[in-house]
């Protein structure tokens, strides 16, 4: 084997794990272990790593098991946020390896589930002492952005549904209440905004026969969006905080997405633009990822139809594309159940990849 290949972090981790097993088996003293671990961390080529292990006995089944077990645990720990992993991965690995019985080569199901659940809990907690958890900040941002989105959609729908006979007064009537909501939110009047949003919700419910205000066909997206606004206003610090942390990037992304689906008539193009924007948001920051997760609730009803496609005229882009290639019933089932599952899996994989990638770089802030 060529000694001049550059090594990588996984290679160094594997050799360090082997060294610890050799120490546990008594082939190395504590001093020798520390010396060789240092040499491993500084190793640049595969030759360096080979020399660290040179005089040690060959692989034994026990050591191979332990090394495989450690690799399994590292894969599970990759689900934790990158910043948290930089600080805590090593000590957590030490704990799980100590607890694991000898001879195991894969983490048990209970252990795996516990670690994954722990990762979810840590992601929902604040990332710094005294900070807000990311999801509350995302809700605060939504309490500002969503009313603007609702206003845009109402205006576009009013435009689409107006005919030469209806006057401008009719269009104004349709967008009056959403406009009021936006004004109240921008004035940072949280409680008044809650009342306005609830009022708009009730008015929609009363008008449910003629659901032209928000979605054109099925009212579910409109209800969900307004419900999300109410939740965002109540459960978060509110528009004051939202306006503080709102960046032009987030706002622009969401507004572009809204205008795209309002203007383009090509369903394929709409989907491509939305997919690109979602991918961009998922990679930018944890706040953006929370925004995506929360926006998915009304967006799912709007884009993919879901179960609501059964009740209203299916105006969703994805539904039109799907029925081109699939029979109607299969399209319904796929959109309602398979698609969200696929999206969820992709989101989890993306979060994990991002965590693995950025946990290799040095950190500038710490929790402890």
């Amino acid at each position, binding site marked *: 084997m060529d000694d001049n290949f550059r090594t990588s972090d996984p290679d160094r981790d594997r050799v*360090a794990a082997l*060294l*610890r097993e050799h*120490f*546990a088996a008594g082939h190395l003293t*504590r001093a020798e*272990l*520390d010396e060789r*671990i240092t040499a491993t961390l500084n190793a640049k080529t595969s030759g360096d790593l080979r020399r660290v292990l040179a005089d040690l006995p060959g692989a034994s089944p026990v050591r191979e098991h332990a090394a495989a077990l450690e690799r399994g645990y590292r894969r599970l720990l990759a689900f934790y946020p990158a910043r*948290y992993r930089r600080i*805590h991965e*090593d*000590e*957590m*690995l*030490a*704990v*799980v*390896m*100590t*607890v694991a019985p000898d001879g195991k080569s894969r983490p048990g199901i*209970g*252990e795996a589930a*516990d*670690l*994954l*659940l*722990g*990762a979810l*809990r*840590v992601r929902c*907690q*604040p990332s*710094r*002492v*005294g*900070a807000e958890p990311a999801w509350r900040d995302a809700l605060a941002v939504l309490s500002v952005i969503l009313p603007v989105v609702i206003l845009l959609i109402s205006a576009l729908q009013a435009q689409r549904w107006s005919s030469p006979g209806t006057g401008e007064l009719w269009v104004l009537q349709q967008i009056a209440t959403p406009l009021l909501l936006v004004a109240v939110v921008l004035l940072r009047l949280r409680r008044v905004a809650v009342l306005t949003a609830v009022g708009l919700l009730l008015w929609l419910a009363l008008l449910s026969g003629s659901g032209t205000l928000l979605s054109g066909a099925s009212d579910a997206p409109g209800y969900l969006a307004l419900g999300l606004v109410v939740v965002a206003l109540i459960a978060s610090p509110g528009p004051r905080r939202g306006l503080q942390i709102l960046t032009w990037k987030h706002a622009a992304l969401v507004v572009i997405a809204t205008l795209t689906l309002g203007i383009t008539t090509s369903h394929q193009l709409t989907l491509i633009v939305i997919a690109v924007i979602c991918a961009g948001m998922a990679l930018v920051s944890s706040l953006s990822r929370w925004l995506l997760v929360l926006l998915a609730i009304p967006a799912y009803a709007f884009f993919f139809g879901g179960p609501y496609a059964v009740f209203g005229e299916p105006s969703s882009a994805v539904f039109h594309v799907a029925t081109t290639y699939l029979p109607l019933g299969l399209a319904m089932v796929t959109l309602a159940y398979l698609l969200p599952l696929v999206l969820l899996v992709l989101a989890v994989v993306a979060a994990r990849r991002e965590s693995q990638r950025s946990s290799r770089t040095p950190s500038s802030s710490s*929790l*402890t």
Partner: protein
Amino acid sequence: MREPTFLILTALAAGAQHGYGIMTDVAQISDGRLRLRAGTLYAVLNRLTVERLVESDREEVVDGRLRRYYRLTPQGAQRLEAEVDRMRSNTAVAARRLRLLGGTP
């Protein structure tokens, strides 16, 4: 306050401990009833650190692996004490009523 949180704070009330030490201590305090796993333990430790009830004490390298010790902050000790008082008064009321009911004294 939930039981794992309460027991973790109780374990740390005896002095600074590392993750594995906290797990064995909690198992011992609860007579084997509550066996913490690493994911649960570290999720609770993270929350307690953010709430400033717990902080990192020191780090050591043992057998080639990193070991981090945690300790209670003064606010953490106060919070644990407040919780003990709350539970004590609740259990006192329950015991009294059971006595009146003709149960065990």
